């Protein structure tokens, strides 16, 4: 995974709460292979009218925010289903960071596993950033110092310290787990004796 340290880019404001994963990627696209890229499906119903033409009033379609790698939204971003495809859609579209006052737990974990930073700010700061970006879409993110800069304004964000380390280093859980193979094996032997009913042998 590509490490995430700093980002200097365009920030796209999305002043909406409860952007759930069904909005981020409608279920009907999830049978597609990742190879084709999921970027076109991102927020599909919001971005495109029924006839497929882009909705001019949706921020992602505003030329001012073209090339944005940061999305700023209101509370409860990514709530809903566990579909990692919601993060694939964001990542394939080009987003590397989402800023919001709160995130769905599963979505946030999925983001980190794909190198996308879920940066938590206060409600008031999210609204301020949204207002600022509407005027000046340039934004800077520093994961090391946990700071967001837009113009003269600096806002601190929070992130689970372990997730921060994972993102900074581009670590993959699987590499870490590999070094604990012996612990896992020892646990399984011990546990099979302690809780013999966990076995599924009787079932079928």
């Amino acid at each position, binding site marked *: 995974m590509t490490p995430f340290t700093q980002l200097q880019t365009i920030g796209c404001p999305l*002043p*909406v*709460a*409860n952007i*759930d994963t*069904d*909005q981020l990627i*409608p*279920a*009907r696209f*999830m*049978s597609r292979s*990742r190879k084709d890229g999921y970027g076109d499906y991102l927020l599909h*119903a919001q971005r495109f009218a*029924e006839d497929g033409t882009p909705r001019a009033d949706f921020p992602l379609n505003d030329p001012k925010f073209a090339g944005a790698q940061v999305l700023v939204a*209101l*509370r*409860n971003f990514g*709530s*809903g*289903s*566990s*579909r*990692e*495809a919601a*993060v694939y859609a964001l990542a394939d579209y080009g987003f590397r960071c989402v800023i919001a006052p*709160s*995130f*769905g*737990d*599963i*979505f946030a*974990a*999925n983001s980190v*596993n*794909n190198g996308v930073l879920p940066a938590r700010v206060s409600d008031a700061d999210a*609204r301020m950033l949204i207002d600022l970006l509407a005027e000046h879409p340039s934004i800077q993110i520093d994961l090391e110092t946990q700071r967001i800069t837009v113009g003269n304004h600096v806002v601190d964000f929070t992130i*689970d310290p*372990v997730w921060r*380390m994972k993102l900074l280093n581009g670590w993959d*859980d*699987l590499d*870490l*787990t590999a070094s*604990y193979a012996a*612990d*896992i094996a020892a*646990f*399984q032997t011990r*546990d099979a004796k302690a*809780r*013999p*009913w*966990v*076995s*599924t*042998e*009787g*079932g*079928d």
Partner: protein
Amino acid sequence: MSNRSETPKTLFDRLWDTHAIVTREDGETLIAIDRHFVHEGSHHAFAKIAEKGRPVARPDLTFGIADHYVPTRNRASGIADPTIRGMVDKLIANTTRERVHLFGLEDRRQGIVHVVGPEQGLTLPGLTIVCGDSHTSTHGALGAWAFGIGASEVAHVLMTQTLWQRKPKTMRVRVDGAFQPGVGAKDLALTLIARIGADGAQGHVVEYAGEAVRSLSIEGRLTLCNLSIESGARCGLVAPDGTTIAYLRGRPYAPSGALFDEAAEHWLGLASDADATFDRELVLDASEIAPVVTWGTSPEEALPITGSVPDPATISDPARAAQYAASIDYMGLRPGMALSDITIDRVFIGSCTNARIEDLRAAAAVLAGSKASVPGFVSPGSSLVKRQAEEEGLDRIFIEAGLEWVDSGCSMCVGMNGDILAPGERSASTTNRNFKGRQGPGSRTHLMSPAMVAAAAITGKLADMRPFLAGRTAQ
């Protein structure tokens, strides 16, 4: 008779301690996984492990279920839609190659993963259970630590049978008193979500306790825990008790004989100590809970059926007012209109939230002898539930009311199999998410209990089910 120790423990503490393999300096803990369910949507994870060239570590603890994409009609003639057939075929190929047991379309036990797990006794108290589906929280009803995971995590579990976790915070929701007749788990869950918000329990494990929760059947507890994720909690829990033990005895995958008794003793000892502390506590009174419906596009936008659509003009918080205005606009409602004036186009009874046998009985009790004034269909939570309902004659009640009686799957909960609403259509639905477009592009969903959907089917509007129960046996 809980396992006494120096520091009082919660049920969740015990589940955590039992499964912690190692804890790193930074607090991340490697957790052993006892059950892993995969479905058609798990294809991304199987692709990942194929890429790494690694096999499934514990096929004996992994179970496949075809539910998300399966057709609910004309199954005997095979799957007509090539994309959907491809999804089911991929699951068959992946599970066959990895020697994972599959409850496939031909299996008489097929159904929705969160219905089949408990039904088969695969879900047991004290287990860790994961699945690439957020409603895995359902299984917590039996005292299991069960949570939904993303594709990267699914791949990690497939390869190692473990997951890295940080200990979440705990929250206890105590529900005192007794429910009014006809009111139950769905109304309780929606009331709670409306109270604390769709993100109210983020970062927490929620333990449901109190007299009213104890009084719920396992089916009601499954509904309650199912909806935990809609308050932001990744997992919900109810401590195992006599109801739990009675439910599990004799289930196909549950232990039997002396081993069951040994297990049962262990399970009953998992309950939180009386003096255990939680990071947050909330108390509700069951007797104050009325039948609830959602009016907006988030489960937190829920109100008693006797209420009316909020008026954003009277809400002081501008962000909240804007959110409500957007929901009202999408749902095609008027501020201030009575909820019981909302006319519907269709009903759906199904999903892992409310399609178990008791749910079908509750809906049938309201519908019996009546005609539905709108079309709709009933998709039982599992093929075994379907068969049982037919043995009880419930299918006749639905069919005579004019509803379609179809096969089991996720169906119109998520619309992946093509069971969707037309744009702009409005449903009364027993499912769990009223999100924009969840039941198809432009769809409008109102969530409620099965009895409330039945009442809406008869009247063609959102309706209070209580008058329909008058003179009949209360549920």
